């Protein structure tokens, strides 16, 4: 008994990539994250879903360590978020592509690769992974919006991070490419990479192993897509999410009783 108690937590700890405890973030005077507690399993795709303004980007920034926390803590790969040792192991793709428009695709990827001691071969591989080989020598600023966000993704892939944080990576992509990218994410997860992918499109939830449902800075639920459709009483994940929101609104947190007003 005492033996299993001693070993069990160690095993779980190793398989947890991100853990947030009582996480509060206030930006200016606006509370953006209001007490989040969750753990993200390593080697899995976790979807961060919620309407725009629900705090997805702030949560991702907190995990990356670029967002100052008001209270609570975030542990990433066993270290506090933002720890210098994490900079080699964590990759971040912001929502608006943060790349140099006046450089070629290749030069962009090689520059960010250089920060992780990666060279030409790794850069070429990352460019191929996002399907931009034909554009490799074009100026990034001349590309379309969807291509631009893929350049930004390639700049993160080149580092081969253990944890990849992606803020709405599939916005504006055509369906074929979106499917390709999700395949890519899945194969990365299978080879041990942890992915946290945000989206406001619920249909993307089905690609994830686990989901964090965020609304108004609070965690509505952490569940699998199957649980989402069961608890939300709908195979349509959008509707299921809606049902869960309605259910939660009817049961105010802290009081177990239903308010039977409406």
């Amino acid at each position, binding site marked *: 008994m005492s033996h299993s108690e001693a070993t069990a937590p160690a095993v779980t700890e190793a398989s947890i990539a991100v853990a947030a405890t009582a996480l509060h973030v206030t*930006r200016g005077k606006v509370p953006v994250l209001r007490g989040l507690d969750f753990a993200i399993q390593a080697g899995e795709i976790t979807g961060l879903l919620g309407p725009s303004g629900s705090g997805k980007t702030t949560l991702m920034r907190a995990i*990356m360590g670029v967002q100052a926390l008001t209270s609570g803590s975030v542990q990433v790969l066993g270290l506090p978020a933002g720890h210098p040792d994490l900079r080699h192991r964590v990759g971040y793709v912001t929502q608006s592509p943060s*790349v140099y428009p006046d450089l070629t695709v290749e030069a962009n990827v090689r520059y960010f690769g250089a920060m992780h001691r990666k060279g030409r071969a790794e850069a070429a591989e990352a460019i191929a992974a996002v399907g931009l080989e034909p554009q490799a020598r074009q100026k990034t600023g001349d590309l379309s919006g969807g291509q631009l966000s893929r350049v930004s993704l390639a700049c993160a892939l080149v580092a081969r991070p253990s944890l990849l944080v992606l803020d709405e990576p599939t916005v504006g992509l055509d369906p074929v490419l979106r499917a390709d990218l999700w395949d890519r994410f899945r194969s990365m997860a299978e080879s041990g990479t942890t992915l946290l992918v945000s989206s406001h499109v619920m249909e993307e939830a089905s690609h994830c192993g686990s989901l964090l449902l965020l609304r108004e800075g609070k965690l509505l639920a952490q569940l699998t897509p199957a649980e989402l459709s069961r608890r939300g009483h709908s195979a349509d994940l959008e509707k299921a999410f809606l049902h869960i929101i309605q259910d939660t609104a009817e049961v105010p947190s802290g009081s177990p009783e239903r308010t039977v007003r409406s």
Partner: protein
Amino acid sequence: MNLLMLLATTRRVLDQLRHDHRSIALILVVPALLLTAVYFLYENETLPPGVPRTFDRVGLMMLAIFPFVVMFLVTSITMLRERTSGTLERLLTTPIHKADLLFGYGLAFSIMAALQSLVATAVAYWIFGLDIQGSPGLVVMIAVINAVLGVALGLLCSAFARTEFQAVQFMPVVVVPQILLCGLFVARERMNEALEAVSNVLPLTFSVDALQEIAANTEPTDQLWMDAGVIVAIVLAVLVLASLTLRRRTA
């Protein structure tokens, strides 16, 4: 500090500039054209025998002021873009050290400044017969140090601007007073006490003093090395201040 990341940054900044032919042309050609204007301004002056031409004094100072102004502008805009486009925040989530980024920038623009002052100095010497005692190599050296000063101040000022429009407005605040008080228009010892006191602590003053040392002596003087040392110290101090404005974590 990591030399690999520093050089990657230098290479990236130069690569960005390489695609911008118009800026390269402006950086290399404009100082030479302005120098031409200065030469013809004083073309018809009548001087008592033995007094050096005004061009030898003003033209020489211009050689140090151009790279300072140009690099201040180029750097503050480039760095501001880096801050607003999100690339800076992204870079700061990677292992790059702030010093690698700042010195990488400094090195890239110093290379451009060296090319610029080589062109301007060559024009001053060979076309307009600039006549000074010291070596043109020392003039180029001071010009490059001045360019790095411009880079350092530009990096720092970009932290206080939110838009490119604001960044440009820092030029009259930071650059113009230094040009007015450096001794180009009025010799510093003829200024009133207050202005002279301000002048004494402005970095560009030391560059102009260094250039006057080069103009007056065939061999480099101790005063020259001291002036150069002071500017380098100021540059390092400004770069440290600039690095404090690079925040890995923001509210």
